[in-house]
């Protein structure tokens, strides 16, 4: 039983557009970046609830989150300008296991968010060589975000990323639910990073329950990375 991580106010350093997404870079303060695939609850200014976001990159002294401004909360976060601040709670949940033999990163759309940090962490374990990655997007505009992931092969709909996955590799995947279901069917033993609406991120609200082993369990506690 570990106490929940610290909540800290961090300051926006930069707000960069990458295709339709926003890369929000903040100061790191005393925040522990944690393990790739873990997540943070980001204050959404003017909203009641924070929003769960995985860490995309860990520039020196900074945290960077890749965010798709699809609703009022994410739009409020993406509207933050350098010098403005927000509360960050984390790292939360269980991230990817990095002790795999032949990693392959699989990402779809905004689900690529944790993969740059994951790639860096895996590269550090492998003499600096980043693992291969396959990424799928719905348009060339969205695919601009692929530049964040080294050593990546990219496809655009109607081609699906599952067509690019060779057999026999240790898959670490994050993307929309239909993609994760397809990866699960194709690659048993994969590590899949799921998402669910959540109010708290630390086990209090029971809002993020998903079916795990036939039971409804809290994704924030059991996940968000689950074995396929």
């Amino acid at each position: 039983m570990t106490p929940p991580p610290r909540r800290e106010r961090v300051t926006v350093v930069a707000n960069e557009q990458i295709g339709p997404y926003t890369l929000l870079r903040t100061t790191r303060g005393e925040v522990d970046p944690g393990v790739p695939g873990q997540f943070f609850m980001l204050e959404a200014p003017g909203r009641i609830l924070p929003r769960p976001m995985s860490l995309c990159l860990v520039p020196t002294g900074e945290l960077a989150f890749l965010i798709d401004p699809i609703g009022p909360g994410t739009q409020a976060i993406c509207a933050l300008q350098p010098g403005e601040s927000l509360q960050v709670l984390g790292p939360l949940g269980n991230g990817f296991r990095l002790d795999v033999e032949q990693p392959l990163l699989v990402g779809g759309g905004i689900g690529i968010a944790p993969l740059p940090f994951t790639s860096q962490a895996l590269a550090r374990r492998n003499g600096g060589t980043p693992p291969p990655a396959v990424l799928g997007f719905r348009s060339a505009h969205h695919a601009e975000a692929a530049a964040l992931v080294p050593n990546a092969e990219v496809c655009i709909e109607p081609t699906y990323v599952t067509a690019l996955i060779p057999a026999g590799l240790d898959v670490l995947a994050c993307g929309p639910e239909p993609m994760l279901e397809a990866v699960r069917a194709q690659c048993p033993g994969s590590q899949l990073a799921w998402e669910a609406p959540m109010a708290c991120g630390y086990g209090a609200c029971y809002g993020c329950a998903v079916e795990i082993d036939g039971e409804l369990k809290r994704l924030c506690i059991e996940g968000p990375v689950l074995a396929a």
Partner: protein
Amino acid sequence: MILNASGCLDALTAPNVAAALDCFVTKTVTPLPRGGNPPTRIAETPVGMLNSIGLANPGIDEFLRVNLPELAALGLRLWVSVGGFSAEEYAASCALLDAWPEVEALELNLSCPNVEEAAESAAAIVAACRAATTKPLWAKLSPANWDIAGSARAVEAAGADGLSLINTIRGLAIDARTNRPVLSLATGGLSGPALKPIALAAVFQCRRVSQLPIVGMGGVRTGRDAFELLAAGATHVAVGTTLFADPGAPGRIRAELQVELERNGFTTSAEASGIAHAPARA
């Protein structure tokens, strides 16, 4: 005394948050295990949130065997929230919990908006539980009941030792993309700042007709919010939705409340309880 609203904190996953409260209230436990409602279970609204968790809990037997010993080991003051679908079910759980000295009081969840409720009146359930335990019984009432003061009088007469005011009130959110309800079961319980005036009214009206102690809750985000519930007649305050955004809320609100009390010339919460009922100064 600052508590958490039932179902808004798990002391086992966040023991240090629970330790910052004066007393921890469990998520409601029912006789049989409940997986809860299917996702989607939560939705943010402009000034609050909806939840449709559906009383997910391990059931009273598993709760007594596994959860309660773990909670007791944390050394917190502990209230257990009890739910059921008939007066007999509530009473049976109360009788089982009566044997646990670690449990300081029982809160009867008479008002969950996300499950089919017991058909009996709140007073009948309280009376059945009163016969089953000597522990203090707090009756958690619904703001959807227009005559909440009448309910307060009835549960007091039936043997309640305190009132917990208020539970969430039913609400609905429509998804902007699909034009269908966001929550899988369509409606959920509304909590957060939107609830504060409703909570204040409930506390105010119940204080007029009853001298039972009251846990006031609903939209408490700041020490001022807590102070206003005290002024309306609460003797204790609980925090709920604000915990989701701010796990540090108990300590922060406690400090802010102390400042607010002193600013108004009070030393303790007890002195401020009910001051809104005094005639206006000329």
